[in-house]
């Protein structure tokens, strides 16, 4: 069975500092990988995704994630965070063709302090 592990439940960081949110998955088959962001009392928004091709994917707001097949990881990074990045971040996987049944990690709460 597939599973997703987000190693940090909370990550406090100062504004303009770099951040890395870790995500590891277990699967015996190839998967698609996603990062979603959830602002307080809202639904989830897709941040970025890896389906195939280049292992480094980027979002429009400066986040990037790198797919590492050998380490089964998909860590999310940003070189300089803003107060507005404070949110909960979820890593998710789904097997291709599996009706997009996403398996989510427990989430990482990113708190950016001034």
């Amino acid at each position, binding site marked *: 069975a597939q599973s997703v592990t*987000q190693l940090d439940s909370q990550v406090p960081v100062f504004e303009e500092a770099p951040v890395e949110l870790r995500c590891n998955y277990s699967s015996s088959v190839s998967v*698609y990988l*996603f990062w*979603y962001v959830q602002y307080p*009392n*809202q*639904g*989830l*928004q*897709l941040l970025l*995704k890896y*389906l195939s091709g280049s292992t480094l994917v980027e979002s429009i707001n400066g986040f990037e994630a790198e797919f590492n097949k050998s380490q089964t990881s998909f860590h999310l990074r940003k070189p300089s965070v803003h107060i507005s990045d404070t949110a909960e971040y*979820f890593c998710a996987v*789904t097997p*291709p063709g599996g*009706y*997009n*049944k*996403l*398996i*989510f*990690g*427990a*989430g990482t709460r990113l708190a950016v302090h001034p």
Partner: protein
Amino acid sequence: SQTIHQWPATLVQPVGSPLSLECTVEGTSNPNLYWYRQAAGRGLQLLFYSVGIGQISSEVPQNLSASRPQDRQFILSSKKLLLSDSGFYLCAFSTGSSDEQYFGPGTRLTVT
């Protein structure tokens, strides 16, 4: 454009009362539909998914049920709520042309 709606936004219900949460999608046909629950401090758990009208698959045994009476309508129900049913319920959809899911704004349910 494609949009997804959920209501109500918040709900407080006593133990033993019935539940009906509604989700509708606009701007696409024959979407895959999903219900998730997010308990406090935990990740999202897939409850049900549907690939067509009247086709419901349950991922975990529980006190809830789902129905899809129309192509773009997905309903989550319970006959008698339990305290453990409290949480944030999210509806989502995906289409055949995309591998990502689009989430609604969610319903916060508190069972007292």
